[in-house]
């Protein structure tokens, strides 16, 4: 069977022929594979920059304290080519981020998936290869 698959539009092709692929150990140097994290928060800022976009979200912890997290996302040019713009991702939107914490303990994470309440994925991180956590 040769089903040609619908490839999710938000893959930024970090695997093969590496669209803006950074060396393996640049992520591994910064982020801790042993500290996976899931965060739910509201979008406060988006930096639509290269080499990686950054999303900032206000996350309320159990005590009710709000911490602003910086999430490293994918490269924006794939989204731009698809016709998406910054304005398609409104400030204040609720976002769920799954990723890995920075080794240095700051509220920073490498976003593997960043999903909006309406189900849209945004800047899929480095995780579109088989076996990576979803």
């Amino acid at each position, binding site marked *: 069977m040769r089903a040609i698959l619908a490839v999710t539009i938000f893959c930024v092709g970090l695997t093969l022929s590496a669209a803006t692929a950074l060396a393996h150990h640049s992520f591994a140097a910064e982020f801790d594979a042993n500290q996976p994290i899931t965060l739910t928060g509201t979008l406060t800022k988006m930096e*639509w920059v290269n080499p990686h976009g950054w999303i900032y979200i206000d996350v309320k912890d159990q005590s009710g304290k709000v911490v602003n997290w910086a999430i490293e996302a994918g490269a924006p040019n794939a989204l*731009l080519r698809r*016709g998406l*713009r*910054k*304005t398609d991702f409104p400030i204040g939107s609720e976002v769920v981020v799954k990723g890995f914490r920075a080794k240095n303990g700051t509220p920073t994470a490498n976003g593997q998936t960043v999903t909006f309440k309406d189900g849209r994925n945004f800047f899929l991180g480095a995780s579109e290869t088989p076996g990576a956590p979803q």
Partner: protein
Amino acid sequence: MPSGAQQARAIPRAPDGRPDLSGFWQVMHTSAWLDIQDHSAEKGVPAGQGIVEGNEIPYLPAALEKKKQNYANRHTDDPVVKCFLPGVPRITYMPFPFQIFQTPQKIGILYEYVHAVREVHMNSKHLEGPIEWWMGDSRGRWDGDTLVVDVMHFNDQTWFDRAGNHHSEALRVTERYSFIDPDHLRYEATIEDPKVFSRPWKMNLVLYRRKEPNFQLLDYECHALEPTTN
């Protein structure tokens, strides 16, 4: 015949009949990137007559305050100090050569300074915004023998010079390139930004052809030139 007159040399033309801007170009005004207005010398900086028509930049009041703040902090805040892309038109008057590649549909302008690239797409529409790029989106057309380039989709991060002259993301630049003679181009940039200026204003420059034998662009990989104590 007027005395001392020289036969005007024909400007180079491409096969399609358009003036051929291909080749290596550079400003001789070595301090415009530091201050686009009239300025006296500072240590390491030659004096210069300004490239701003009328020497006046028509700031709105709040924007003028920002310019003054920028000026006060220029040695740290100028984005070029951080090796960032200089934007348009500053990239044109950085003291580095650039090379124009001309084909009928695309004109590539390659700058030695941080290998900045601008591709001028001829006779085509801007991409739909909002888009914020350092070097903007360039679309060109010919107006007789003048190349007119319309540039928009900028971010608000670049300065026009080290003196802190700035703009918003609403910036729109219209460039006009035309031959004075085969080895000199007249370059004019009209600046429009209703968030920052009360009216459009212009900069004017001469671009000189680099004629040294075997001339080519080399590297200025700015960030790699910073001293590092690994």
